[in-house]
């Protein structure tokens, strides 16, 4: 093999390694976000505001299935509101799409039964969450849910 040939094989091998590392990193990010998604709902069920403090980005916005917006502060205030009670809640069909190394969107279904701001809501919603990598920590920049069925 000529020197040129060896160089080409070397470059091709390096490209393969880089591509493989990149795909692995994206796979890791998707798995990490799936786990964070579950933690996020677990925290919500327990009215755990500390998780939200750490994992909601500044500028976070939530759009709920009955058409209200909430800022990060309002969302946390709601979590701290002891009159909001979660009887049950589970997420399923979590899918994550990554865009580069710093942005991802997760789609999932959330079925819950809760007393929220004095209203009983038992429904299944479909949600889209936007995640951003803030200096190595994945944070939610936005969440938006719409009702599939229920009341």
């Amino acid at each position, binding site marked *: 093999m000529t020197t040129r040939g060896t160089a080409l094989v070397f470059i091709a091998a390096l490209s393969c390694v880089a591509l493989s590392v990149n795909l692995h990193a994206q796979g890791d990010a998707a798995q990490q976000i799936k786990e964070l998604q579950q933690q996020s709902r677990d925290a919500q069920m327990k009215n755990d505001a500390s998780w939200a403090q750490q994992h909601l980005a500044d500028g976070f*916005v939530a759009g*709920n299935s009955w058409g209200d917006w909430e800022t990060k502060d309002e969302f946390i205030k709601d979590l701290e509101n002891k009159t909001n009670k979660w009887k049950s809640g589970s997420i399923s069909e979590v899918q994550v799409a990554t865009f*580069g190394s710093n*942005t991802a969107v997760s789609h999932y279904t959330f079925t819950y039964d809760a007393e929220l701001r004095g209203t009983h809501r038992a429904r299944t919603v479909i949600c889209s969450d936007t995640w951003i990598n803030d200096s190595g920590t994945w944070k939610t920049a936005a969440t*938006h849910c*719409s009702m599939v069925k229920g009341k």
Partner: protein
Amino acid sequence: MKRMWMWCLVGLLSLGSAALSQDNSATSGTEKAVAALEQQWLQSQKTNNPDLVAGLLADKFVNTARDGKVTGKAESLAAAKATKYEAVAYDNLKVTAFGHAAIATGVFKAKGTDSLGKPLDTHERFTDTWVKMPNGQWQCIASHQSSIEM
């Protein structure tokens, strides 16, 4: 010696302030750029011309409609082509930048005929997620709508 330290401090503060100002201006630039793209999207609906929005949607774009229906780019564009709008408007369009991503939220009001030929009279909130692609172009990667309970 004291004077030298003072000049160093002034220099550092100036550098920090310049960096902060550049950061703020980049954020404001992102917000303006994405708001303009949202207006282009509205224009495509006003003129019933989906070609205006096709390039704004990423290949992996996902739309979640207010009834929970999830569609990809091709299906969303086909639905846009089949929908005939008579009137459309945004209320309270707001864009927040997060580095190479941005979130646009607002209220969308529309009247017309939907893709199935049924009368359309919608009042919904939306969240659009935009990402700056490696080629420098901003594209929408996800859009989610929910009905406003009246």
